[in-house]
Structure formats: C-alpha cells, structure tokens
C-alpha cells in the first residue's frame, strides 16, 4: 500500500496560487525529500496532505484512503516552526501531546522515557519548556513526532537548531525508522541531508513540481560530460578535447567539447605525461541542481 499519493493538487489564497498541480507518491520504507525554495508551496502541500487545508482541486490519499480522525494517530508531524507549551514542565507537555495520539498517559510515558534518555533530556524533564535551549526543544518536538510509533512521518526541517552530534543522532533515528518500514516525508532546504538520507524526492518551485524521481536518477539526469582530476604534476593549460579548465574544491574541472568521451581526454593527458592521482566524472550536487532549476525557472518567469 502506497503511504501517500498526491495527485494534481492545487491551492490558492486569494490571487496567490500556492500549489499548482503537484503530484507525487511515497512508499513505505522510504525517505522522501520534499524540496523547494522559500515560498515554493512545500508547507502548503504538507498541510493539504495532513488535511489541515482542503485542496481547491486534486486528490490526496494517505495510508490507503482519504484522511480521517483515526488516521491522525498513525501519523507523526514535525512542523517547521516548533510548537510546545512553554509554561509547563517538559515531561507534562510531552505526555499531553503524545496522549492526544491515542496512548494512555502511562503508555505514553513508557514511550517517552527511553527517548528522553536517548536525547539527553531526562535531567531536564521537570524544567519548563521555555527554560530549554532551542536544540533541546527541537529534540523534544521529535519525541512528540515519533513516540507513538507512526506509520507515516512528515518532518519539516528536522535538523534546524541541532548541533552536529544531535544531527547525526536524528539521522540515525530516521534511518532506523525507514528500516522498520516507516514512510518518511522530509521537507528541507539542506540538500546535503537529502543526498545523504533521501531515496526519492520532488522539487517544487512557485507551487509547481519541477523534478521528481530517485535522487541518484535526478543527479544522473543533470550530470554533464565533465571530468574532475588531480595530478601529481602540472596539468597542461591546453588538452585535446577540453574546452575549459577551472579549479574545483582542490581538483581541476575539465569541461569537455561536445561529443568528446572522458576516456579520450584521460588517454590524451597520460600521453602528455600527466601523472593522474584521482579522476571522476563530475556529477552535479543537489545544491547545484537546485540552483540551476530554481534560477532557470526564475529566468523563464
């Protein structure tokens, strides 16, 4: 059963079209990236999936059908801007929010305690939420999202406010959840996190779906016939079949002429006496793809 099916949804606020015909599907056991610049329509799409907003047109199927009250207990949601009751102790706040997901207070506490231990929050459980750091509140919010063991997790910028240690902890947690068969929809700007964690992705810009598919496939689609090389001696300024050379993160980027194969260039370099230490086909990062797509769309607009 596909966990989430979004089919041609649109949503406008007044004259502003926030989402314009977005479609994608997410399977159980995968981490799906929902990407896009600020104001692209990601949060509106998430709110439509969660039935907070009704779409103007299009359909959403979640956990095998339309959203209903019972399904809310099978979903974990971490919004971009965190929401915890600031004036009450952390333990009470977590217990209340988790019991709203259908667990008894005792059962909720049983789930919360090991997670508080894991996130180093146990010593802070009696403190008021407002007394905790941003990072601690972020971890507390993650506990609320995950404690009821949802089948579908929707998380918006899960790594904001986290230090590298906690970022890694959350990544490990998300991978664990995926391995258990949980479907995770992750909304983020941080492309390196998407490259590291996501199996598939959709890129939304100005409410429209620009790219959709597996992360590797998308990167392959955007890969150029460029070479990244490092040599033990000097790389000649002119190499047969190479249009342009430039420095790139300690490597030299060789932009090849149309129709020239990388093997031909490598052979020419060896024949010219270059001692190669490292070479690779330059695949663009998601950051580069993101900028290229968003800027290209901007130019068209």
């Amino acid at each position, binding site marked *: 059963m596909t966990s989430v099916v979004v089919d041609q949804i649109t949503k406008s606020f007044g004259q502003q079209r926030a989402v314009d015909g977005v479609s994608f599907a997410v399977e159980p056991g995968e981490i799906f990236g929902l990407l896009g610049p600020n104001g692209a329509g990601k949060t509106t799409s998430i*709110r439509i999936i*969660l039935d*907070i*907003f*009704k779409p103007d047109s299009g359909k959403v199927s979640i956990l095998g059908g339309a959203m209903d*009250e019972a399904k*809310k*207990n099978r*979903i974990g*949601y971490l*919004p971009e*801007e*965190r*929401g*915890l*009751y*600031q*004036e*009450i102790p952390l333990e009470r706040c977590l217990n*209340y*929010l988790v*019991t*709203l*997901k259908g667990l008894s207070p005792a059962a909720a506490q049983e789930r919360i305690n090991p997670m508080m231990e894991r996130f180093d929050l146990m010593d802070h459980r009696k403190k008021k939420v407002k007394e905790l750091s941003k990072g601690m509140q972020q971890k507390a919010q993650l506990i*609320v999202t995950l404690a009821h063991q949802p089948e579908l997790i929707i998380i918006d910028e899960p790594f904001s406010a986290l230090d590298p240690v906690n970022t890694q902890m959350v990544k490990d947690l998300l991978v664990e959840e995926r391995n258990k068969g949980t479907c995770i929809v992750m909304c983020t700007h941080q492309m390196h996190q998407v490259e590291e964690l996501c199996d598939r992705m959709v890129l939304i810009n100005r409410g429209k779906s620009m790219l959709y598919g597996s992360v590797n496939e998308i990167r392959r689609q955007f890969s150029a016939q460029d070479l990244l090389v490092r040599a033990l001696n000097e790389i000649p300024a002119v190499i047969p079949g190479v249009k342009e050379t430039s420095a790139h993160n300690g490597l030299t980027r060789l932009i090849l002429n149309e129709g020239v194969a990388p093997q031909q260039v490598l052979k020419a370099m060896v024949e010219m006496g270059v001692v190669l230490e490292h070479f690779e086909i330059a695949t663009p990062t998601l950051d580069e793809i993101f900028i290229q797509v968003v800027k290209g769309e901007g130019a068209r607009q």
Partner: protein
Amino acid sequence: MRNIWLVFKHEYTRQVLRKRFIMVLISLPLIILLSGGVGVLAVLVMMNNDPIGYVDQSGLLSDPVNLPDSAGLSQAVGIISYPDDQSARQALEAGQIQGYYILDANYLTTGKVTQVAIDPIGENAQGDFTTFLRANLVKGMDPKVAERLIEGSSIEVRALEDVTRKAGENDWVNLVFPLVMGIFLMMAVNTSGGYLLQAVVEEKENRTMEIVITSISPDQLMTGKILGNLSVGLTQLVVWFAVPLGVFFGVRPFIPFLRDISLGGSYVWLSLAALPAAFVMVAALMAMVGATATETREAQQVAGLFTLPLFVPYWLITPLIESPNSPLAVGMSLFPMTAPVTLPARAAFTLVPAWQSALSLGLLYLAAFGSLWLAGRAFRLGMLQYGKRLKLAELFRRQEA
C-alpha cells in the same frame, strides 16, 4: 469524547496551577476576609460588656423597665442605678462599671444626659442605655405602640408605576446580593474568557495548535478549550462565593442583624440559569477573537469590545433601580450581552413577568450557541493564518479551509 476530555484536563490544570491564577483566586476572598475581619475587630474593640450606671435626677427611672437578656456577642450590659454622682463615681473608680450617665432634673424638657467615663464607653453599652431610656419613656403605653416607637417602621419602597415592586428596607441584602453576584460573575467570566483568549492566541503564535490539530479535530480542540477555561472561571466563582457565604453563615448566629437576613428570591435561580449561557457566550467570543487575531495585544483590545457591554448595567444602575420595568430595563434584560446582570438585578427589585424571563434566557442561550458556531468557524478558518487577520465578514462568507 476522550480527546475533548484530554484537552479539557490539560487546559484546566494548566491554568489553575499557574501562580498568577492562584494569586487572583486567593486574593479576593482574602481581601473580603481581611476587610470583614477588620470590621469585626473594630466592632469587638468598641464593645464593652461591663455594666454601666446611671444617676436619675429626673425621676423618670424610679421604677425602671429592664432590657431583656440576649445571646451572642452583643448581649445587653447590666445597667445599675446609683443614688448620686458620688456613689456612681466611686463605682467607676473601683472598676465596677465602665461609665455612668446622669439624667438631668429637666431631662423630659431638655433631653440632657451627661456621660462620665474614664475610657470611652463601649458602643454596645451606649446603644443599650439608649434603648433602656426609650423603653422607660414609653412605659405604660400599649405594648404594640411602644414596640413601634422603639423599633421604628419597616419601610417598603414601591415605584408609582410598578405595583409589584416590594423592596423592603430589611431586604437590603437581597437587593445588593444580585449586583455583587453580577460583579463576581463578570469577573469570573472575564478571567476565564481572558485565559481562553490568551491560550488560543499563544497556541496560534507558537504553532502548538498546528501540532494539536494533526492529532485531534479543531472542534474537539475548541470544545475542550472552552470547557476547560469555563471550569477555571467556575472554580474561581465557587471559591469567591464559598468563602464569603461560609463566613456569613459562620458568624450569622452571633451577630443579631445578620440573623434577620435571609438570602433567596427569584434572582438566585435566574442568576444560576443565566450563568452557563453567559460563560459559554463570552468564552466562545473570546475564542473567536483569539482565532482571528494575529497577536495577544491586538486580541485583548478587540476582546474589550465584547466584554464592555457586560458592565453596561452597572453604569445604568440608577434608572434600573428606579424603573425596573421601564423599556430600557426590559430591553437590557433581553439583550444577551447585558442580560446576565440585568435580569437577576431586575428580579431583586420587581416581579419580572415569566415571559420576559423565558425570552431573556432563550435569547441568551441562542446567543451562546451562535457564538459557539462563530467560534468554531473562526477557529477552523483563522487558526493557521499566521500574521494575517481574519476579517469578520470572512467568517460568514468563506468556505472552510
């Protein structure tokens, strides 16, 4: 139902465990107890049950009628006759009496009485001596006439156009009580409404609402919130009433003038009937304001417009008391925002026609349900409009989000 209960419990405990709430809850009864205590203390300090004496130079008290004994704090003091100033002075200096009075030889024409004391004579003793004198002045008269002369008349005020009005001066408590009750009611309604308003705006501002409504429905959230905060107001009301009433019934047996007071009347059940609707109406309006506003300060300013009409009856209290069946009074007891105070207040001064009571309560409950409906709509439409105000017209026009 479970979710409503969870929200209710959370809202209730969140508010009643706040230091600010506990301070407000305790401070009012404490002020009442303190001011009452100071009053009682002042009376006790001014009381002195030692005997008093008198020297009768007029011959009026040659065969005196004594005051009957009474129980409680203010039992009558002993009144001792002395043949002359000298013997009375000796008794005073010996501490046998707290003071004495000398009735002038021409007392009946001049009314002159001289009081002699080392320390001021207790107010109760002064009162007892005055009563003693009066009782002896009317000695020999028809006992009924004598009683009327001593105790005075029981004046019942009745308006010219209103034959049903029957406000006796001994019923002053029953006239004041509904007005005080109204003040307490409005304070409690405003407090709980204020907490609700704050809770809604805060949750909207800090995005907690977005988390909660992905777990439960907006209607469950709103219902739980309203019920929770209403209970906070009711808790306040119960404590505020229980303490003064407890004190009242506790000290009543010991204070004669309190013994004459009986609480009761149609205003009591009218107040009780209006209470839930008034609470729901104000709370729902506060929830609506909270859901449509963008920040707490703005919400509080708008909420003021809704709570202001509740106090209008107090501004117009004089015409209400003078003409409790005037068109103004009837209109105010029918208008839902002014009815919770006006209706019981009118009932204390006049016999409110049953149809008016029924219509007033009917309109009030209708307004309460209407406010709930509006609040529900505002909640669904405005709860996630961060930084953008929901216009009132949109509440009636827009499709659900």
